[in-house]
């Protein structure tokens, strides 16, 4: 048996190791769009302090989001709202899987927890203010995540995948069991609160577009997304993020350095579950429905696809992957209709593509899009800097 196990002990094998390298600089990548040829010059333009740098990125991203939401039509607005909740959940998942090496197929179920919490709070006669409700969604999902995380901390790889798979398949059953409160198969309708006055005056000041409810929800999602990513990016660059990477890459060394492996794994799961809970809350508001059919296994696997194709551990990768989840299905469905498939058949093309993408990405580019590009870039840098001293 020991012979067989030896290959699998290489947790820090090619795939995860490159993912780790990729994640190292994730936040700066978002600003690296300014075409700076070398790393040294790029540094000088940005603030030295990580917090300031992230605040700068946050500001730029916020302006970018407003511009994007104002120049696009209402349909794209609603697509972008969908993108926000996918991206929030994928961001949490990429921290868990990429940073800490734990896989979770249960994030769809954790989103369901957030969504049902939001729906329950909003169905009250005098609902609480929206931020408080979303906070409640986060808290409840975090509690469930902590419970799962305690069990998950002792597991790894296939065991963890199987346990979270059972979560994804099992948890929606509770909604059917408690159908008096949670609405059974039909689910709960969500009354999305109306946009505040401030928002309407803001929109009319910025672009003069009409401040529809769709637009308000897209903005709400974008605000949640930006806050989440800002917090996660800081977390990744902090002592906590470094400890997570240590736990992922070198269990024994980390333990010798006095790191309590289990506690840090639980923490990663908790953080990740909080993001999933918020994502579920936003989903409930955008879709205006919390129903078991919205949280199938395919949702969890779609999130996994997003972070794998974007590059494990990279927030930018998670964002790109989520964009793929939103914009790919209409595209392939049209394609399928063009091939003469009927609607229900064409709708299945998207999950088919997710599956194929997962397989192909894992075989040929385990570091994902962002990771692979960054590796190319770093290799070229290393070659160039190796060539320079010999010339000089």
């Amino acid at each position: 048996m020991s012979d067989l196990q030896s290959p699998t002990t290489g947790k820090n094998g090619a795939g995860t190791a490159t993912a780790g390298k990729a994640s190292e600089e994730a936040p700066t990548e978002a600003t690296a769009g300014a075409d700076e040829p070398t790393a040294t010059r790029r540094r000088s333009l940005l603030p030295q302090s990580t917090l300031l740098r992230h605040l700068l990125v946050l500001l730029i991203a916020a302006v970018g989001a407003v511009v994007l939401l104002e120049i696009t039509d209402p349909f794209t607005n609603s697509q972008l709202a969908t993108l926000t909740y996918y991206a929030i959940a994928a961001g949490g998942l990429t921290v868990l899987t990429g940073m800490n090496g734990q896989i979770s197929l249960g994030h769809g179920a954790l989103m369901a927890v957030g969504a049902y919490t939001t729906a329950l709070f909003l169905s009250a006669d005098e609902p609480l203010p929206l931020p408080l409700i979303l906070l409640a969604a986060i808290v409840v999902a975090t509690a469930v995540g902590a419970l799962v995380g305690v069990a998950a901390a002792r597991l790894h790889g296939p065991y963890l995948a199987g346990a979270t798979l059972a979560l994804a398949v099992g948890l929606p059953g509770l909604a059917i069991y408690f159908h008096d409160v949670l609405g059974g198969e039909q689910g709960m309708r969500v009354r999305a609160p109306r946009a505040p006055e401030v928002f309407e005056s803001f929109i009319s000041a910025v672009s003069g577009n009409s401040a529809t409810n769709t637009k308000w929800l897209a903005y709400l999602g974008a605000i949640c997304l930006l806050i989440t990513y800002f917090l996660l990016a800081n977390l990744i660059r902090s002592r906590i993020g470094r400890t997570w990477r240590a736990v992922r890459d070198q269990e024994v060394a980390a333990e010798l350095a006095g790191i309590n492996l289990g506690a840090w794994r639980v923490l990663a799961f908790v953080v990740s579950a909080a993001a999933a809970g918020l994502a579920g809350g936003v989903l409930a508001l955008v879709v205006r429905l919390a129903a078991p059919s919205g949280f199938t296994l395919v949702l969890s696997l779609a999130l996994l696809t997003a972070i794998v194709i974007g590059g494990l551990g990279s927030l930018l990768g998670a964002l790109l992957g989520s964009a793929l989840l939103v914009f790919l299905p209409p595209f392939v469905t049209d394609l399928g209709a063009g091939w003469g498939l009927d609607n229900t058949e064409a709708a299945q093309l998207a999950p088919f593509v997710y599956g194929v993408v997962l397989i192909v990405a894992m075989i040929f580019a385990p570091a994902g899009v962002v990771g692979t590009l960054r590796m190319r870039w770093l290799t070229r840098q290393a070659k160039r800097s190796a060539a320079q001293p010999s010339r000089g």
Partner: protein
Amino acid sequence: MQYFVNVTLTGLTEGMVYSAFALALVLIWRSTRIVNFAQGSMAAATTFIALALIQAGQSYWVALVVALLSGLVLGAIVERVVIRPVEGGPELNAVIVTLGLFVAIQAAIAIVFGSAFQSFPTPFGLEGFQVGDNRIALTPNSVWVIAAVLVTMALLVVLFRFTRIGLAMRASAFGQEVARLLGVRVGRMLTLGWALAAVVGSLAGLLIAGGEFVYPAYMDSLIVFGFVAAVLGGLDSPIGAIVGGLILGLALSYVSGYVERGSALVNVAALVILMIVLLVRPGGLFASSTARRA
């Protein structure tokens, strides 16, 4: 009392199918250290092939044989084409590849055969046997299910214990390097192992489908049950998988039989059982080692 007997009989029949499915997972885990999450989709694919044949007028038995053979081919192809490149790599990569297969095959079934619910026939009746005045929950079909699983298990035992190929397969699962040095074609043995596991999985899929409705995702719960059963037995032990399957079958049957509206809770119960096992005895009920760290 009669109700209890009936619930127990139902649990044992279902448990047999879970055992077969868990056995398929264990076969693959032993040889390649991969949990094949695509097992359910692969079994669903062969079930739909069988259904297409039956709807085209073939007999159940022809369909059964063709389905099992296509399972064999599918298992071999999957191992050679997509699993081989990630074998021995980081374990997360292999998990993600099998999950990708899981979604892709399920979607492919929906595209080819449609996602509607279709009823799957049984070769034998679904009317319970008469014992005295009572009709018990043991049907001719459940006898067929139990017999089919038992015969399959007996064949596997014969294969692994008494044939040269079985010995070679055990050797390559136990120590790849040594087996290779002794002239065992390890690659072929791994392919064969996956192919055999796919056959066992397909059989489980066909048996659970009998008398029920099938749709592309109908195996989603079964993959969870199979995994829970396999973990109950420790993932490494074929006997453990069989016992685990029976225990799980009984437990779930009691939940759905004795808890009000319990059928909605079956998946949750499986989750709870899995969590308890993983927390209390992570190595399974029959494990000699206590921790799994590699």
